[in-house]
């Protein structure tokens, strides 16, 4: 993904215009995506900045007619993964199962519907905490599938994994999220 940097590769006006336009049209979406992935403003700012530098360097590898947003989300995702690896030790790849706050109470029928009961002000805080408690991989798949509304195929391309992995990760992430939402809304 990282464009090879030639020793002498002077910028062209098209390259500069490409970046200007990319920032103007997709800067906000990219920043919000980064914010949701990282759940941290400083990280989201760094990630967004770095992603657009990559866009600038690799602008010729962008395929016209394909989705620019998917392209930059893939860049953001890869940068974030690299960053997590770099910081390994501070983050876990997955939350261990026994670390779940509490059991949800088995399968259906669902007597309690915690999400429905949340009023808007509560929702923000509860959802924020719940998302924060997910592993980065789980948060990523939830953001892509439910907030950005990408298909499993598109998510697999962005994340760089199989569709089967997307599916199973999303299933687990949503179960985990429901537990966490119940946990944090019950804690009030």
């Amino acid at each position, binding site marked *: 993904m990282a464009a090879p940097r030639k020793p*002498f590769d*002077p*910028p*062209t*006006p*098209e390259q*500069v*215009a*490409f*970046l200007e*336009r*990319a*920032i103007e*049209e*997709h*800067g*906000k*979406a*990219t*920043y*919000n995506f980064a*914010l*949701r992935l990282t759940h941290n403003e400083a990280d989201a*700012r760094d990630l*967004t*900045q770095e992603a657009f*530098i990559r866009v600038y*360097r690799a602008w*010729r590898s*962008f*395929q*016209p*007619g394909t*989705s*620019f*947003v998917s392209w930059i989300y893939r860049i953001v995702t890869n940068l974030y993964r690299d960053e997590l690896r770099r910081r390994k030790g501070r983050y876990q790849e997955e939350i261990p199962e026994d670390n779940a706050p509490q059991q949800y109470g088995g399968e*259906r*029928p*669902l007597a309690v*519907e915690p*999400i*429905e009961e949340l009023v*808007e002000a509560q*929702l*923000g805080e509860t*959802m*924020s905490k719940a998302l924060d408690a997910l592993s980065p991989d789980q948060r990523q798949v*939830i953001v892509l599938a*439910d*907030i*950005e509304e990408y*298909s*499993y195929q598109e998510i697999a391309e962005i994340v760089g994994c199989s569709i089967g992995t997307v*599916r199973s990760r*999303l*299933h687990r992430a*949503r*179960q985990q999220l*429901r537990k966490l*939402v119940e946990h944090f809304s019950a804690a009030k």
Partner: protein
Amino acid sequence: MNQQHVTTEQLIDYLHGELAPGDDAEILQHLEHCGACALAYDEQARVSEALRAYARMSERELPQGVVNRIWDRIDREERSPSWGARIAAFWRPAIAVPVAALLVIGIFFGYSATHRTPITTIDASYYLQDHAAITGTVPFSEGIIVPSGMGSNAPATTTADATSPKLSGSLVADAR
């Protein structure tokens, strides 16, 4: 499948439109007749709705500081390795021809000006730098000297490869 309840996994795939058409239709039919599964589906759907509601309420503007830092870095690391490189980059036929014409005029007037008033001099290299900087900053703004076809697929340089992406439309069409 019609006789059995729908699994959570199936519900999630169904919710995301990821089932094959046949399976999709079967589940739809089951949900119409089974209260327990319909309830479970509603609960799953609410998770997605809550996530989108949260996303909307927590949406932020891109901080201007981020934009500034991007351009600062490009100015520092990418755009101007040296004035020589910048001028060389700028000094290409498509742009250079009209500019050279202006330059000749500029030098001519500068020259004649120095003859009249020796203090006022317009240095040609200053002009070049200034113009290169402007061109680099607002490459497609109107009124600037742009070779015809630029902004479509025509590269501004004669050496640029033919895979140069079409800017027009490619980003605009991407309204996701």
